[in-house]
């Protein structure tokens, strides 16, 4: 097991105190690709930032996130600096803003090697050019010598992924790598992820088709809760949680099925209880209580519909029966 996230919660101390992430557990094995899907504001990006220690100071993070046996949540800065960038790397949202407009892309891709492995600039850039060729960013060395403004969104995103693995990271955490890209450019990003044969990936996305293409397992988040977690195939073909079901039915390829009930702003959710209840077709009295994470047919699902179902047992904190 490479990354083991156990009961991570994030609360922001400002204002009313927003609960951004509640008790999320998931695991990522070596070379495994896991996607977290959910709508804007579901807390999926915050979870990634919490694991990486990149949240502002008013965020209160609880729980544990073991990376190769060491808890990143409690790690000291010096120790974090040793693993971030070399062992675990981050591809931020909006790749265009992640690149420095005043430096060539080739140099920026090479920078983790220069910084962490103390390799000479020339050598590192040569390595970057090799990697950029592998990701089909450009076959010529000139492409690496260009500045970000000459790149398309898809090229920038792939350059960011190259930057993520150049220093030999075993794991990439990516935040919405396809946001704002059109179909052809999404295809390029899919190819780049497919070529990450030796790395594990934890990727946040709202694009279910992209998740289907790249992931082994998928975790679904809704309003700060993890509502379902299963292998990608299982989850997309036999979704159990009503939210997952509604989401899949609403995809254009499934006929844009309309469901009553609307997404809400953060402050409108009641404390406790199932967060999806106000929109749920199956909502019943019981849903005012917070549902436990259940293990049903190889899925983990947080829904009262499945209590008492055959094969169900309360999932242990970190158990994942895939």
């Amino acid at each position, binding site marked *: 097991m490479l990354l083991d996230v156990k009961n991570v919660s994030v609360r922001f101390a400002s204002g009313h105190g927003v609960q951004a992430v509640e008790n999320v557990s998931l695991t990522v094995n070596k070379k495994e690709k896991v996607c977290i899907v959910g709508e804007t504001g579901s807390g999926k990006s915050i979870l990634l930032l919490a694991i990486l220690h990149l949240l502002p100071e008013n965020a209160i993070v609880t729980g544990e996130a073991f990376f190769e046996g060491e808890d990143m949540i409690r790690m000291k800065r010096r120790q974090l600096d040793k693993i971030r960038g070399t062992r675990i790397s981050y591809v931020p949202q909006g790749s265009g803003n992640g690149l420095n407009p005043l430096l060539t892309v080739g140099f920026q891709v090479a920078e983790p090697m220069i910084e962490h492995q103390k390799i000479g600039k020339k050598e590192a850039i040569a390595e970057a050019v090799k990697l950029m060729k592998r990701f089909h960013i450009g076959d010529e060395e000139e492409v690496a010598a260009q500045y970000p403004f000459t790149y398309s*969104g898809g090229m920038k995103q792939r350059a960011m992924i190259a930057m993520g693995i150049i220093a030999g990271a075993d794991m990439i955490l990516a935040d919405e790598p396809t946001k704002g890209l059109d179909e052809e450019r999404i295809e390029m990003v899919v190819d780049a992820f497919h070529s990450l044969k030796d790395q594990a990936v934890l990727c946040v996305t709202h694009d279910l088709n992209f998740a289907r293409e790249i992931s082994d397992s998928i975790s679904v988040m809704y309003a700060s809760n993890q509502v379902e977690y299963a292998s990608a195939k299982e989850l997309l073909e036999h979704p159990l949680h009503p939210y997952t079901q509604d989401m899949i039915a609403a995809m*254009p390829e499934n*006929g844009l099925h309309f469901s009553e009930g609307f997404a*809400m*702003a953060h402050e409108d959710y009641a404390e406790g209880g199932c967060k999806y209840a106000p929109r749920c077709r199956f909502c019943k009295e019981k849903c005012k209580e917070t549902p436990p994470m259940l293990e049903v047919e190889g899925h983990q699902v947080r829904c009262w519909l499945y209590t008492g179902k055959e094969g169900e047992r309360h999932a242990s904190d970190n158990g994942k029966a895939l």
Partner: protein
Amino acid sequence: MLLTTEKLSKAYKSRKKGEPVFWAAKEVCVEIPEGKTVGLLGPSGSGKSTVGQMIVGLIEASSGEIFYKGERLSYPLKGELRKKIQILFQHPEVSFNPMLPLIRSMVEPYKLMKKDSSEKAILADIERFGLHREHLYRTPLELSGGELQRAALARVLVLEPELIILDEPTSMLDVISQAQIVHFLQEYQKEHETAYLFITHNKVLAKTVCDEIYEIREGICTKKEM
């Protein structure tokens, strides 16, 4: 035909001398029938938004004509026509003044149409979009993307448009909100025979929603067989 464009083009001159002009849209011919949804499909930078914005008059065309119910349009649009051709933008969060509570932005079209702009009248219109009184007194920052786009749609419909340019209206929304916006658009079309120009980069979405599709690439637009 409700609206036709004839050889509609937009060229941008390069600042450097001797460089060729850049054609954002070149001789685009599109026909939008009454009460139908026409798709304009293309990757980013293909010129699809340029065409939409030329039709509403946000961008001045370099050449070509636009005919509305057989009459040549002259821009800027004036009077009734300006209300009849509307646009719904991609980013709902920038469609509203961020400093004002939603209700202040919502009353504008009511005043323009000399309709009753009381809170009660607005509520009666927005309820079908899943918006309630509490939403009206929030600023755009306190509302979700789905809520804002539904409010933007409700606001556009007050003007009783005959044609709405939908410029990627769902690309920033989650799948469930996307299906809801499409559902409301289709319901409204059934009731009012409104025509839509649906601009998108999503092939599957275009196929599901549109009656006819035009494909645009590097400014060149062709009609696609369905």
